[in-house]
Every structure is written in C-alpha cells, then in structure tokens.
C-alpha cells in the first residue's frame, strides 16, 4: 500500500493518553518500505542497523515517522501506567454486609440505581460515550442551544491551502469555536478603544494604561459559559519556542549526556552506561 515517501505533509495529530487506547476498527497496519535497505545492489550486508540506516542514504520520511510513532506509543503507554491505579488485574469482591441498611445488598432500590450498580463501565467508556453523544447531537446535555458548528472540513487539498498556523502551537486544544465569542471579550488593551494610547497621552506622565475591570455584563456572560468537556480542559502543551524536554540518566537520575545507540535511552556516564547495557537495554528501537 505504501509506495514511496509521503507527498503531503500530514497534519500534526496528538494522541491524548486516555485510560485505555484500544486498537479500534478502522486501524490498519501499513507496510513501510525498507528504503535502500532492501535494494540488493546498494545493501552491502551489514547487520548493524545504525550503520545501515546512516550509510544507505538515510531513512525515508515514512520510516522516520514510523519510528517516532512507535516511540510516541511507548511513551504514552508509560504515561498511562503512571496514571493507573493498579486496579486492572485486581478483583476484589465486596463481602456481604450485615446490619447496614435496608434494601438490597448488591442490587439497588430502583431500576436506575440497579443499572448503575451493576454496570461495569470505567471512565474511558464514559468519555467515549460522551464524545459519541456530542458527535451525534452536536451539543452536550442540558444546553439550550448548540454551540456554533465547528469549521466545515475544507475540501481544498493541503498543498493548495493558504498557510495557516500549525495547530500545535496555537495554545489551547479547545476547538476554535471556543475562542470566538462576542466581540465584548477584551483581549489586552487593543479591544478597549478608550484605552488605546494616543500620542498625547503617552507623553502625559500621568497616563495610566492598566486595563479596567470588565463590565458586569461581560462577567455574567463569562460565568454563564457551559463547562468544557473533559478533553478540552486539558492544559495545552508549552509553547514550542520554550526549552526542549529534559532527559535524565536511566540508571542514576542525573542529566542524560549520552544516548544508547540501540534503544535511545540516555545515561550520564560510562559507569551508568555499562549498567544500562548489562541489565536494562531494551534494544527495541531500530
């Protein structure tokens, strides 16, 4: 299926680590061509994958993307484990309680509560249900009117579109509909015309350019906005101009200074690197 390198720049997709991420239907393994490694006229038979990668004209875009996708999946698996409760492999039956209260011990008193008590759903299910509901009806429960419809997916091919900001830098993961509000929402001094600096004002030493408090109507509007969904409320990534993520030594925890050529984890010194090679090297990334 994959013939040659990708021609269009793929959009930046950030897979958020929810509690479980299953291989949902609609997922397909795509063979990534081996680049020059498979060409017998170029391949001089080394088994050292790093040398093969470097000397045979580098990796194709697809290969690089496949490697980074694999690394990203690994990181996300580790993050999910970090945020887990050790409850997956644990089955604890609630003992029958005596003398606690009237009403069924396990079953609930009304049909609704029976359903709630018997349901085995976990949080990921509820999140998926809510997203399905929003996709289906376009609004969350209880809202009087639907939020303005999101931008219709453009049919212009990517190559022909006017350049737009990379979505990962724009700050909040909330859809763009959230940013558009009534023009009352002041953003800095520009939105408040009476505060815009005039030349005369700046020269005046008593000029005070602190923005005034918003009016009661604006405050009421902001307070009455509906709550965001769970995924919209996540904090956004730091600006891309910030410092690069820090890497630490896997063995002792100091700064990572040297990267293992086989598995990509960092260690700080020769001593720690030896420990890593003996016990911990995963040899997993190509």
């Amino acid at each position, binding site marked *: 299926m994959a013939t040659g390198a990708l021609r269009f720049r793929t959009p930046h997709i950030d897979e958020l680590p929810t509690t479980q991420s299953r291989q949902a239907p609609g997922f397909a393994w795509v063979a990534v061509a081996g680049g020059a490694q498979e060409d017998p006229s170029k391949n001089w038979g080394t088994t050292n994958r790093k040398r093969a990668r470097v000397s045979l004209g580098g990796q194709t875009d697809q290969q690089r993307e496949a490697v980074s996708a694999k690394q990203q999946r690994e990181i996300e698996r580790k993050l999910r484990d970090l945020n887990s409760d050790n409850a997956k492999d644990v089955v604890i039956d609630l003992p029958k309680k005596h003398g606690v209260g009237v009403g069924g011990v*396990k079953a*609930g008193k009304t049909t609704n509560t029976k359903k709630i008590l018997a349901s085995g759903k976990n949080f990921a299910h509820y999140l998926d249900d809510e997203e399905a509901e929003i996709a289906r009806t376009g609004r969350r429960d209880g809202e009087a009117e639907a939020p303005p419809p999101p931008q219709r997916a453009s049919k212009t091919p990517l190559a022909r579109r006017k350049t737009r900001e990379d979505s990962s830098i724009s700050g909040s993961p909330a859809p763009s509909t959230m940013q558009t509000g009534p023009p009352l929402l002041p953003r800095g001094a520009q*939105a408040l015309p009476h505060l815009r600096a005039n030349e005369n004002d700046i020269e005046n030493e008593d000029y005070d350019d602190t923005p005034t408090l918003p009016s009661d109507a604006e405050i009421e509007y902001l307070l009455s*906005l*509906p709550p965001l969904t769970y995924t919209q409320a*996540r*904090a956004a990534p730091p600006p891309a101009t910030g410092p690069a993520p820090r890497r630490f030594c896997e063995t002792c925890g100091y700064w990572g200074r040297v990267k293992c050529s086989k598995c990509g984890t960092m260690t700080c010194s020769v001593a720690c690197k030896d420990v890593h090679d003996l016990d911990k090297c995963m040899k997993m990334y190509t």
Partner: protein
Amino acid sequence: MARQKSLPSAPEASGHLADKTLIIDNGAHTLKAGLATHLDDTPPNLDSCHIIPNVIARSQRDKRTYIGPEYSDCLDFGELAYRRPVEKGFIVHWEAEKAVWERSFLHKDDAVVKCDPEETSLILTEAPNAPVALQRNADEMVFEEFGFAGYYRTIAPTLNAYAPSPFPSTATSVSGVPLECLLIIDVGHSHTTVTPLHHGRPFQHAIKRLEIGGKTLTNQMKLLISRTFDVHREDHIVSEIKEDVCFVSQDFNADLERVWRGGRYDPRAVDASLLVDYVLPDYETIKRGYARPHDPAVKLRDIMLGIGTEGGRREHVLTIANERFVVPELLFSPADIGMRQAGLAGMVLQSIDALPAGFRQAYLANILVVGGTSKLPGFVQRLESELRSLVDVDEVVRVARAEEPAKNVWLGGAGMAKSADLMRSLIVTRQEYAEHGDGWARRVFAGKARR
C-alpha cells in the same frame, strides 16, 4: 420535560430544610466528610471533618478486605491490592463507592459520621469538567439509593471561596459570603486543576487540568526506587516514603549536581546532607517506616542481618538521593517523562490568559493552593518564584496555601452550610427532584435553571 421520578420512599413536604448537612468532599484518595448545621452560629470546626480512605483493599496476608475507614485498622500494608471507586477524580464505580459510604455513614455500630440520610442534606463535590453521565449517576444514587433529604452538587474548587481566606490582607468573610476573586490550584490525587472563581462562581472556559497528581508522583517514585529494590506493588509504603522524604527543590540544577556521584573518570563527592536513609517497615517490629539522615559508615548488609542496630533488630534500609526532589519536579515540568503539557506555572498563565485582561492582576494576586499533594515542603515558594519569572516585573504575584490543604474544601462547604439562606437557595430537595426529574436538577446545579 418533567419526568415523575419514583422514589422508594415518599419525600416530605418541600421547602423544609434539613437541620443537619453532611458535607462530603469526595476525592480519589480520601473522603473528607463531616456534619455541619445551620442552627447554631459556631464557626465550622476542623475536628468535625473526618478523613476516610476512599479505597477497598484486600490483603493476601490477612485474607481480609478493608473497606473505607477499616483501612487504618490494617496491620500489614505489604502487598495490598487496591480497588478505588473514583477514577480520574470522578466517582465511576458506584458499587464500591456505595460500600465505602455505607461503611462510613450508615454502619450500625461503627460509623465514622453517623447520620440518617432521610433527615440530612448532602453537599457533594465533584471534579470539574465531568462527563454528564457521571453527574446523572451521582444524582440518581444520592436521591434514589441513599435517599438524602436535600442535595447540592458542585465542583470542588468553588467551595474554597467560602472558607476563611489565607491571605493576611483580605478580611475574613462572613459565613455564607464567598470571597471575591480567587484562583484555586487544587493539587489532588488524580490530577491538578486550576480554577478562577468570581464570588464563588467558576469561569468554566478557563478551568485547566494537568494530568499529574499525587498518584502519578507515587507511581514515579515506585519506578525510581525499583531501580534498587522492587516496590512496584507496595503502594502504601511508597506513598509514605513520598510524604516523608520528598520536597520541591528551589534550584533543581544545583541540587542535582550536589547528589551526583560523577562519572567513572570523574568521581565527585556527594553532598550527604541531601541523602536520606529510609528504614522500611516490616510490620513485626517496625510498624511504620521512617527516615534518618544518611550515615555512610553503616553497612547495609550488616543492618539487614541485625548486626549493629539497636536491640539487634533487622532493618531494611533504602538510600534515597535525587528521587527526593526529582519526583515532585514532575509537577513543574511534565515534559520530563514525556507528557506534552505545560507545567503548573504555565498552566496558571494559560488559565489567566483566558480571562479578560482587567482581571489579570486580580487573579495573579489571589492564588490559593489546596490539595493533599501541596503539602510538599517548598511547593508554594517554588510556584511563586516560577510565576514571578513568567510575568511582568510590576505585576504582584501572591500565592498562599490553605492552612489545612486537604480539608479546606470541606471547611468551605461547612461555611456554606452554616447559612440557612444560602442553603435554601442551592439545595434541591427530594420532592423537587421527584417532581421535576434529574435533567432539571442538573441544570439547577449548573446554574442554568431558576427555582
């Protein structure tokens, strides 16, 4: 669209506000619960707030299951299997949560907070941005299963506005009157949220969540300690180690340099003042682990066998060095483990940037930190210095931690419960729920429907 709800027992006449109010701050790690009443004027007392572990634990060694408050009776915390009803801050597994609530409040002999739901109102807190189905489940369970007389569900940060202000310059508010501008940072077990409040009402579009909480820190601590000794299944012990020994470093780079052993060809002297020897509990002689300053002269193998210790007891000792401050550093830079989210200071600024510019100074100067994980030493100082470095020089930044960070939300709820007028305007009684249905009740709690 009013649906008549059929409740198991008939509710009494509406308009009658129950005398007592049970306030439950339902967290992922613990419940903070206690009774308050609007009949007398005494200010809410922190002693009436009970902290109940929100967990069902099974011990393979005792073959016993500990539900809720029984957890503190456990004599051997080694290798406990846990089941938590609250996932990501929301009550998901009601079967387990019902067991914990019944054991804590309805148990015949041994309830922590004895109350009769038919005659008590309930104030229940939830985490912000809940899926609607979970809110509906909570409402149905409270009214239909437990049968509380009145009920108010709110997001946990809003209750902080009714607790006494920790800022010395803000006057203590009268009970029932919320503070005007507050930015609440709730560093909890499952996650950390930032909520700006205006007179006790949240700005929903500016609520942000960082997916690092006490649980993440404990699990990261398990990973790091397991480099020397495998503690992956010892949740309670590692949690105690984290609480005893971890602190937030004010100068991360310098501290990391101080505890580095150096390379093979470049060995360095480690600054022993930062090292700690932690004695693990064995639940026979040592019931609770404790930390002591590192003693390089002691031979760990001898101590394991009981040679050279006081009374000849065997001690299993772990030396903890940079884990002490590397683990809490996750809160300030989640990118260290690959999480693509801004740290705490960045998230606070994201939330403030979503507000009108006129509010910026007001909220920067009223930042309140609550939540169990904020008890880490050095947390407030570090947060304040990071925020200061990110904002203009002439903007005032004031960060304060509540006196009792874990119980502050409960204290706010108790302050709210003291005012009968406020309660009457907020509480939905059982009869109203039976008449109007759960959709209406949800809209009332969200502030959308008038009563």
